[in-house]
């Protein structure tokens, strides 16, 4: 595949095209093929999402004929799901609570740590950073699970919603610190030195000088932690038992389609409600997110 596409690509390049006489310029097959493949990729990416959105607005008979485009639309499933599935509003609130707390804590941790690792003369920073990076190459989630259960039990956090926050913060913490460190490294050290000579303390330097400059990186960290916490499954299913304290994804994963309150379009409606916040947030922050990635979140 690569070979075929790559070997045709020169025809599409402006410089190559200019070298040959204009009247003999062939059709830009390379470009056409390139866009065809990319459009195919986009189509494959969008199809499952389009399918589930359509499923959530199908009338019940349509949902069971499997036809992708419904003959009759029915938008009542959303209201039905929120009012008739007993614990659902509770699960949504649990998810919102756990996710927002996790994102806030993890972001603060990552910003402070990234700053200390780059712009403060922190003793032992190499050791701390190496440990964090090493943890990204180790199956920490699997190996720590049994003892995390024990810790949560000792703290009285088993089968509680708020207890989930603590293990959740650690899930993407190493990655978040790694990202923030990369972003802080793009800020010249001279700036920090100049501020320090002017008598600016470490806290004021962070809050007034640095914070506006790492804004895009913070967006990346928020998105990363949001995605991790909003959909977390393994810990939630291990550390909680009752449906009222569980988060949305665990309830969704346990629901198998059938009749009544769990009829397919109704589950699909729940699903769309679970995914929509993430996608809307991405649509809004997409510009900063992409910039943050380019600024250094991808470095290393």
């Amino acid at each position: 595949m690569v070979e075929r596409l790559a070997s045709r690509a020169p025809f599409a390049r402006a410089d190559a095209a200019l070298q040959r006489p204009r009247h003999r310029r062939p059709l830009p097959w390379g470009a056409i093929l390139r866009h065809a493949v990319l459009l195919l990729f986009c189509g494959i990416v969008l199809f499952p999402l389009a399918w589930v959105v359509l499923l959530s607005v199908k009338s019940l008979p349509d949902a069971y004929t499997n036809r992708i485009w419904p003959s009759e639309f029915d938008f009542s499933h959303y209201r039905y799901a929120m009012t008739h599935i007993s614990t659902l509003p509770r699960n949504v609130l649990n998810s919102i609570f756990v996710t927002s707390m996790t994102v806030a804590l993890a972001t603060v941790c990552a910003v402070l740590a990234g700053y200390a690792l780059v712009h403060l003369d922190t003793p032992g920073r190499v050791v701390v950073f190496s440990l964090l990076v090493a943890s990204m190459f180790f199956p920490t989630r699997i190996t720590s699970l049994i003892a995390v259960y024990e810790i949560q039990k000792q703290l009285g956090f088993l089968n509680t919603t708020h207890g989930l926050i603590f293990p959740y913060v650690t899930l993407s913490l190493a990655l978040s610190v790694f990202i923030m460190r990369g972003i802080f490294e793009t800020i010249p050290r001279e700036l920090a030195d100049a501020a320090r000579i002017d008598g600016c303390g470490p806290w004021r330097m962070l809050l007034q000088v640095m914070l506006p400059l790492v804004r895009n990186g913070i967006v990346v960290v928020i998105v990363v932690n949001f995605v991790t916490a909003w959909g977390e499954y393994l810990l939630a299913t291990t550390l909680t038992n009752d449906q009222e304290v569980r988060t949305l994804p665990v309830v969704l994963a346990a629901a198998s389609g059938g009749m009544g309150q769990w009829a397919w379009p109704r589950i699909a409606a729940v699903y769309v409600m679970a995914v929509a916040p993430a996608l809307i947030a991405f649509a809004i922050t997409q510009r900063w997110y992409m910039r943050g990635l380019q600024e250094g979140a991808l470095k290393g």
Partner: protein
Amino acid sequence: MVVLARGRAGATARHWRESFMYRFVTSWPFLLPTIGFFVGWQLYPILRVLWMSFTDYYYLRVGEPVHWVGLANYREALADPLVRQGLLRALAFTAIFLPGMIVIPLVAAILIDRVRNQRLATIYRVILLIPAMIPGPLIFVLWKWMYSYTIGPINYVLVDVLHLFTIYNAPQWLGDPDLTFLAVAVMEWWWGLGYHTIFFLAGLATIPRELFEAARVDGASEWRMFWSVTLPRLRPILLVLVVLRFGTAMAVIDEYLIFGGFNRALPTYTWTVYMWDLAFQLGDWRQSYAAAVGWIGALLMLIVVAFLFWLFRPRD
């Protein structure tokens, strides 16, 4: 302490400002929250699990004394057919998943890199990145429905639109042991496509254009340039992605729990699921043995990661 330092003479204050204690006191408060979470819910638990794996601890046998048993759990686990099978299954999935997870995004990145219309290139990137914004478990739930042979659109297309199969022989993507891993891998490719493409695009952007110009002047084909210019320059990114994805693939558990549950006949019953089963479900919750199973898997992964680092070592 700071007040104390200010009260002293200038020279002493400067000395104090350069001292280890001063640096420690002014910088570690910034690290403390991260270290608190990291040690409390990651480092300590991992070491605690390591300790557990050398004992005969059962979670549900409350009040019974716990003994140090040395390597007995490890010896037992290495002889346990379920552990061996679980590790082999995880390796089999990794072998299916990893090549596609590297090659497909690399193709997408090279194609997008050549799109000259910047607006169009951004649109491609954003669309491909959409799945990366959906949390994993929600992806797995969606694809469980996609693969379902009652409601799933994949079999609907295969049976009712393309007529390639009938309802009697339509593929059972998640129920047929031969197809399960492929089905999971396709889902993972779908999920990771955009994210990995962005990684490769960042790598491609760092390659100086002059290298390609020079190669082209020398008459190198596109294919040759890919092997001699692009790929060597992407080696650091390739290493990071291969190692990270190897790690995720070997330690997959959420997908398997959602798709296969605890069905031992399905290939999704790998060492991770077995560990969970042992620790939180079977018998008296023999967490000591489960800990040993988990550490055997982790050590095996570390060995392979070390090998990968060696394989991708910088060569001149």
